[in-house]
């Protein structure tokens, strides 16, 4: 596709429910990122993949959060036993290579807005 695609666009979950958020990066992009944006805040880093390898997961808030990218393209962010504080917009971004070596820009998707009731 032309850009980063995320689904679903909105997700309402009951507290304690598991959710899965999907990201389709730009075709051929090696690097994929997940960010969490709470209301009134800037995006906060969650995790980073280079191809299928998860190279940094230091931003994941707890072990209830899990991300995967098994074939180096589509990625899924899974949140188990959701809590109200998980309510946020979850943004996925991709870049052709990595930003560190080449100062490439990130292309963001429109995000998934998660509301936990």
């Amino acid at each position, binding site marked *: 596709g032309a850009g980063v695609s995320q689904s679903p666009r909105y997700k309402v979950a009951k507290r304690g429910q598991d959710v899965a958020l999907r990201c389709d990066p730009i075709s051929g992009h090696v690097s994929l990122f997940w960010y969490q944006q709470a209301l009134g805040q800037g995006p906060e*880093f969650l995790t980073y993949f280079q191809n299928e390898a998860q190279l940094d997961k230091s931003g994941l808030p707890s072990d209830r959060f899990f991300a995967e990218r098994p074939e180096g393209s589509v990625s899924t962010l899974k949140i188990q036993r959701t809590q109200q504080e998980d309510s946020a917009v979850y*943004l996925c971004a991709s870049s052709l290579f990595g930003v560190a070596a080449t100062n490439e820009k990130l292309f963001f998707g429109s995000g998934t807005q998660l509301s936990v009731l």
Partner: protein
Amino acid sequence: DQQVKQNSPSLSVQEGRISILNCDYTNSMFDYFLWYKKYPAEGPTFLISISSIKDKNEDGRFTVFLNKSAKHLSLHIVPSQPGDSAVYFCAVRQGGSEKLVFGKGTKLTVNP
């Protein structure tokens, strides 16, 4: 504690005038600085960036200034247009890291 601060939550300017958005950071190890623009219900889009080896970068109506000694950067938009109305995020990166650290954003409104 916040590593990147955008102290003005909002800014309102008249069409045709200059918009100046400010950003302060705390860590002198940050070496790459970016501005992203975000419209409602969309993801952030890259606007302009600057490396720590420069103090100014210009792209059309947008100019970013970097003052390393003050750990301060600013985005100038001249002339401002109503279509520039959006939330602007400052983001910084430390050399060798893939992470971007974002500020909380400044909502710019350009009035016709």
